[in-house]
């Protein structure tokens, strides 16, 4: 399900995959960016797909949300490592 990634010197990054919800080209002003960020996703709608590096059972892996189709998924965000969850 999750494919291994090499631990290089740069920290691995990921991000949303597929079409963005707002397909219009991004404006460069801060105000426009904040406006886009402010939109909340809706229940009953598809969860936006993404791919992200992860630490899992001793390995660095790459996880894609859509690889979990067919299973129930709980996606939890938290403010930072070494805080409580």
């Amino acid at each position, binding site marked *: 399900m*999750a494919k291994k990634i090499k*631990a290089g010197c740069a*920290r*691995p*990054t*990921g*991000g*949303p995959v597929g079409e*963005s*919800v707002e397909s219009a080209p991004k404006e460069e002003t801060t105000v426009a*960016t*904040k406006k*886009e*960020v*402010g*939109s*909340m*996703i*809706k*229940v*009953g*709608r*598809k*969860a*936006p*797909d*993404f791919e*992200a*590096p*992860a*630490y*899992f*059972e*001793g390995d*660095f*892996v790459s*996880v894609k*949300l*859509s690889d*979990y*189709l*067919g*299973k*129930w*998924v*709980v*996606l*939890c*965000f*938290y*403010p*930072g*490592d*070494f*805080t*409580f*969850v």
Partner: protein
Amino acid sequence: MSVDSVFVHKMWVDHELSKMVKGGIPFPMLSDAGGKVGAVYGIYDEDAGVETRGRFIIDPDGVVQGFEVLTPPVGRNVNESIRQIQAFQVVRDSEGTEATPSGWRPGKKTLKPGPDLVGNVWKEWKTEMAFD
């Protein structure tokens, strides 16, 4: 998922979480550098540069069935998340013919929405059932 790198995730597991959870964390700890994914989900606090406590329940079709978002100082109730997943699973297994009223837990009565139930919920469900 947090904005921390996978390297910091590993350190957190090695130095702290492994002392709380035997055998380590049984699910992938995701890294969201810059909060790009959190922004799409609407829970990234761009002023603080961190994700807030967003929790999303996603069904086997990839559809968001529920979410909860808390500011950082207050932790979540894991039992409530599990209860919600159990309720969504009951509804899904019934192909939408059953619904779980307020206070439902596994083993408690579900409701069967339809013309006969309209105006008759009071016969099937009592307010104290919301609280236990």
